[in-house]
């Protein structure tokens, strides 16, 4: 009897919420209430009026997060407390794996409503192609859309539709250990050109301040792409593939070989986590204070400096540029994808808006917490404007630097091979770095041929 009463209340509550959301009118609401009031005998009738589907839609909002997001941003649970019914979950996406999402979509269902952890160039095109996600345009408030930094909005858009609601911004730049560079007698400022950068790195070694001068992450989207962008952003084919045979890409490869001469010898090895993608040798060398300079997205040196005796010795600057180059770099955001077969879509938009605008997230990210210092930044113009107008006491200089870089930076173009083109190409351009191939143009042509061959398979 108690169970029956609870069922009636649930049905009524479900209808009430649908009424409030405007999904049913008052007449239908009254009809359902009447039917539900008949008790369980009326449930069969109720189904006719759609109460069954109302109940099915009444699961709590169920977002799922890539686990690193919670690890780097421990303030998220506090924000979740503002959403008492939230069914917060960690996503089964180790190593960017989206197979579970795709498999569910093929059955026309989704365990979750929204996925927080999508990086557009990595998996957004795949999720769109597989019909797993839908655009946010019908749910995102217009003022939020207008508030996005234009370059970020472009990154998250395919065919004019916003498929990723951006959250965390990462921009590639340079960092240096001022303790080591000062010992080497270098000025405490960012080298402006790659030639200066290499000369400084050599000076670090020559002075004995550290065994290695400079380092980089050998994954192409973290080295070839940003270094090429520092010369020119015009490095994409009409279909959106990275043009490895372009002059900026070849110059980037030559530059990498020069940096390798002053770098930690394990620089080309795979990383320790996420299928070799993270926990890379450059991070280990920088964390161990064995290298003066690093080029990477800013949150990496910020995280590594936490292992230093004196983390304030970390200084950050824009990516150096080639003489006469554009001085651009690469950025990407990690954001939220809306599952086509998920539920609670309006609620999801409400939640993501609250999450992405919450000042606690940004304070923790920029100033750091006891457990992490991700240094990832917001995607909205209004937040930066507010900081400019009333600088918080916890604000750090690198934020303005990153924001300024963003006006020149470009995201890697969205493509089905957005990430894998760099994985396919890596061993082939590394043949030049290791001396197996003498001509960088030949190495990069081999990369382009291999990527196109993979694209044309089947």
């Amino acid at each position, binding site marked *: 009897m108690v169970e029956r009463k609870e069922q009636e209340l649930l049905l009524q509550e479900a209808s009430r919420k649908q009424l409030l959301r405007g999904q049913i009118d008052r007449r239908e609401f009254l009809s359902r209430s009447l039917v539900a009031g008949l008790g369980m005998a009326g449930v069969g009738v109720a189904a006719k009026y759609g109460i069954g589907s109302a109940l099915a839609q009444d699961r709590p909002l169920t977002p799922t997060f890539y686990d690193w997001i919670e690890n780097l941003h421990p303030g998220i649970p506090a924000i979740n407390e503002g959403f008492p019914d939230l069914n917060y979950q960690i996503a089964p996406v180790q*190593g960017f794996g989206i197979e579970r999402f795709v498999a569910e979509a093929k059955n026309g269902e989704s365990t979750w409503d929204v996925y927080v952890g999508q990086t557009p160039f990595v998996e957004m095109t795949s999720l769109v*192609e*597989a019909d797993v996600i839908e655009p946010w345009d019908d749910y995102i408030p217009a003022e939020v859309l207008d508030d996005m930094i234009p370059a970020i909005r472009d990154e998250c858009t395919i065919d004019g539709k916003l498929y990723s609601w951006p959250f965390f911004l990462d921009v590639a730049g340079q960092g240096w250990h001022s303790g080591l560079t000062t010992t080497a007698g270098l000025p405490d400022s960012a080298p402006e050109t790659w030639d200066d950068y290499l000369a400084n790195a050599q000076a670090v070694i020559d002075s004995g301040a550290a*065994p290695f001068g400079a380092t980089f992450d050998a994954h192409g989207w973290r080295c070839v792409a940003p270094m090429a962008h520092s010369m020119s952003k015009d490095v994409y084919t009409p279909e959106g593939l990275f043009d490895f045979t372009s002059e900026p890409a070849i110059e980037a490869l030559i530059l990498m070989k020069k940096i390798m001469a002053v770098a*930690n010898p394990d620089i080309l090895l*795979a990383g320790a986590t996420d299928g070799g993608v993270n926990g890379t040798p450059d991070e280990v060398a920088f964390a*161990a204070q064995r290298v003066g300079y690093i080029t990477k997205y800013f949150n990496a040196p910020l995280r590594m400096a936490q292992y230093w005796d004196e983390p304030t010795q970390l200084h950050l600057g824009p990516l150096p540029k080639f003489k006469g180059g554009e001085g651009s770099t690469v950025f990407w955001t990690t954001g939220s994808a809306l599952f086509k077969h998920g539920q609670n879509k309006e609620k999801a938009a409400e939640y993501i808006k609250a999450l992405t605008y919450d000042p606690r997230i940004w304070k923790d990210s920029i100033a750091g917490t006891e457990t992490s210092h991700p240094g990832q930044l917001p995607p909205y113009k209004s937040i930066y404007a507010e900081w400019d107008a009333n600088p918080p006491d916890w604000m750090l200089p690198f934020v303005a630097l990153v924001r300024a870089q963003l006006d020149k930076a470009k995201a890697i173009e969205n493509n089905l091979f957005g990430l894998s083109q760099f994985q396919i190409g890596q061993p082939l351009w590394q043949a030049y770095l290791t001396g197996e191939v003498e001509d960088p143009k030949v190495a990069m042509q081999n990369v382009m041929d291999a990527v196109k061959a*993979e694209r044309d398979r089947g």
Partner: protein
Amino acid sequence: MQRPHTSATARHLKDNLGTWVFLLPTLLFFVGYQVYPIFRVVWISFTNYEFLSNDPAQWVGFGNYVEALNDPLMWDSLWRAAYFTMMFLPGTIIFPMILAILVDRVQQPKLQTLYRIVLLIPALIPSTLVFVLWKWMYNYQVGPINYLLVDVFGIFTYQNAPQWLGGTALTLPSIAVMEVWWGLGYHAIFFLAGLAAIPKEMIEAARLDGANEWKVFWHITLPRLAPIMMILVVLRFGTSMAVIDEYLIFGGFNRASPTYTWTMFMYDQAFNIGLWRQGFAAAIGMIGAVVMIFFVGILLYIFRPRG
């Protein structure tokens, strides 16, 4: 003429009905969990099935097999798996056997139990923890192995210290060492069970007849451990040829890495590249499976019971 036969069959079925009822759950599990997936993969391997595409799969005959067999990466990746197996398999047989023989000689019961427990400890550690532990051990810059080689003994410098993992020539031997260590105690237990089955009188009689330790080992112990060796060789051949977790963790998707074996090639095609060509990936998997079955047959012949 048919009636007696039919009634005999019916009687046979009736008599064995209970047996079939008891077998049914296992049969259902076997068919649903083993037979169906195998046939499903075989079917997929003859289609152009792409996981990310919503287009229906088309029959392509042996197209995927021809493409795979003409791809040098297929042969390179099979060779890499075989190379790892050649390093791993002897180590996983010889060392545990020697260890088991040594432990078997311990007469003190408490000490014998202690040795067995210690031997089993690595096998009880979860795989993730083992990988994390060895990744740290092998780390170029902060790992204890290179710390000893560079900082303590000064055999190498930071410029030329060995790069154990991450796609170098040392990667597969390094992983093989880890795997042998991990399975040492577990495999030794197999041999200890085999040693326990050898009658002590036989060894004593041999010694009375003047056989030395080597002759006892060669003529008595080794032949009687052959069935254990056969089981281990066949089981471990399968696991070592089909390793993937370790390669995903230690090597990633770098196609030039020794860890990019046929299982990685298959995984890369099925879950990473383009529209995820699972038809092609299934063909790669079937080719790998056929190669493995062929060599398992050879191993079974080599280790067949004799006399």
